[in-house]
């Protein structure tokens, strides 16, 4: 967004606010140019505290040009980053969470869900679908950290399982991008069972000899790391991303000592032999697509006559 838009947006928002309070009934109310999240002109880098022009930051894949800090992407931004423009078709978007335990802490779970849907602008903590990456088909899922910390409940589990089954059926590679605090406590034992559910479907994919690339992004922890996220044939992480099983605080409390600063970072995991690659965001798409190309040379797509990219969108699923 440019400066002009920014000021126009401010005026429109003021008018809208007045109208909402009943003072500006004679004003013609137009919707603001963009919502609050997008109309921030400047963003403070979370890595080096430098002020960055938001539109430039977005152009640079939300990577800070000074310190290369990789800011969190939304699920949609992640899909846009990896899938070819216009190729992505979302599936199972209408699987919605229930409240199996009638869970209530300081707030009822149902209220939390509604709040999460509002703040994240997403129906659940994952988006799944089919698309292409540099003209090669893929089944892709990206987690939405804004939605209750990207936690895995029944919906996340079910959507991953359905996506995996789709990958098996169409004999496509699977790419899952995780960003999550772990299992969703509000669904109790059923959220724990999603670990077994996703892992057991990935066993089928494994036996079908299909490629699964797991991309770990800031942050990936708990039940998500300890199930599907660590089961990739190839594990890739973004620079500086924190990835682990237990959280830093829990470990420090348990062992009663301070942990090294780089503990549980992508680089630390790479050094300890836990992941294959740490790749900066701007190279991710090309490297993932190259890896897929290398693995899928000998495999033919099922029932495919024309290249996947030429199949009309509606017929791909």
């Amino acid at each position, binding site marked *: 967004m440019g400066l002009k838009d920014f000021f126009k947006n401010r005026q429109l928002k003021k008018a809208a606010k007045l109208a909402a309070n009943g003072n500006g009934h004679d004003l013609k109310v137009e919707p603001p140019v963009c919502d609050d999240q997008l109309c921030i002109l400047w963003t403070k880098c979370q890595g080096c505290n430098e002020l960055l022009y938001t539109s430039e930051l977005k152009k640079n894949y939300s990577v800070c040009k000074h310190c290369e800090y990789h800011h969190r992407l939304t699920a949609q931004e992640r899909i846009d980053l990896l899938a070819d423009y216009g190729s992505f078709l979302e599936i*199972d978007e*209408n*699987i*919605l*969470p*229930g*409240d*199996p*335990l009638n*869970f*209530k*802490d*300081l707030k009822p779970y149902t209220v939390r869900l509604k709040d999460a849907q509002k703040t994240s602008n997403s129906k659940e903590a994952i988006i799944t679908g089919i698309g292409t990456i540099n003209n090669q088909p893929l089944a892709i899922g990206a987690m939405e950290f804004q939605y209750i910390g990207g936690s895995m409940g*029944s*919906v996340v*589990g*079910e959507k991953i*399982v359905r996506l995996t089954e789709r990958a098996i059926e169409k004999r496509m590679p699977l790419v899952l991008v995780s960003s999550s605090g772990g*299992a969703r*406590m509000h*669904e*109790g*034992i*059923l*959220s*724990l*069972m*999603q*670990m*077994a*559910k996703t*892992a*057991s*479907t*990935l*066993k*089928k994919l*494994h*036996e079908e000899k299909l490629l699964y690339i797991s991309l770990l992004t800031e942050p990936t922890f*708990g*039940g998500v*790391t*300890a*199930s*599907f*996220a*660590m*089961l990739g044939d190839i594990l890739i992480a973004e620079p500086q991303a924190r990835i*682990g*099983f*237990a959280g830093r605080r*829990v*470990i420090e409390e*348990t*062992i009663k000592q301070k*942990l090294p600063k780089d*503990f*549980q970072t992508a680089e630390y995991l790479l050094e*300890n032999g*836990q992941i294959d690659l740490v790749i900066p965001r701007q190279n991710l798409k090309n490297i993932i697509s190259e890896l897929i190309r290398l693995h899928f040379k000998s495999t033919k797509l099922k029932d495919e006559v024309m290249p996947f990219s030429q199949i009309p969108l509606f017929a791909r699923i």
Partner: protein
Amino acid sequence: MKTKQEIIPLDFEKPLIALSKQISELEEKTLKNGDSKIVGDLKNQYEKVKGQIYKNLSPIERIKIARHPQRPYPLDYIQAISQTWYELHGDRTGKDDGAIVGGLIEIDGQTVMVIGTQKGRDIKENQKRNFGMPSPEGYRKALRFFYHAEKFNFPIVTFIDTPGAYPGLEAEAHNQSHAIAMNLRELAGLTVPVIAVVTGEGGSGGALALSVANRVLMLENSVYSVISAEGCAAILWRTKDKASEAASALKITAQDLYELGVIDEIIPEVEGGAHYDHKQACENVLNSIKNHLRELKELSPEELKTDRQEKFRRMGAFSSI
């Protein structure tokens, strides 16, 4: 375990202790006087209070029973249910985790691979057992046992009593997540019968890594949860004092899990909990395992695998438009 040892009472059992003390004091007196009516009344009251306490156990009270230091541990069950017991050791890559035990036993003449998480009874044993919290090497040791059972077509029985996988520096450096994830995936692919018995605490992923089974059984007073009640309270209520509320909200008792369709059977315990009668607890567990093994014997290897995968495929609560 020695039956002579006195049972350590839990907080909520205190009224009972007071009553029984009163009874024995009175009994001594009445022996001299010969009037036993008051004692009889007191005894009735004792039974009434006992019934009330044990019938209406709250989730947090069940957690206390599940964590009782005198509760039978997996090794107690293993040694009680089979005369044969050959313990096997090590993950073959550098460690033998004491928190995971495993080996070969016989049930009804059939060789069975048994694996369990094991807590220690004293400080010294707990140094070795790490309070029943397995490290990645422990899960890899278990994985080795799964493959062994698969190769020789032995059914697998697992016993679970763990606060969870160990959250430590070394555990992270050796990839705890991957060790657990691999067990989940590989258990799902086995073609032998797998039965999991939660005997005490079923602590989150650390417990699940041994519980992707055809049949999941729970002892009446055991608990199985995605997070400890204390941990959940600290995060969602922002204070550990709310553990009792968290325990109720999380639905962690055997009865709750049975109603949610997550487990297949509740194995009964004697009044007050399995620590009051180890022999009975072991007998009940053995009987239940035998029944399930008999049923699973009817399935072919491929059916056993599909049965397990389908079972977990169904789990979850959501709506679709």
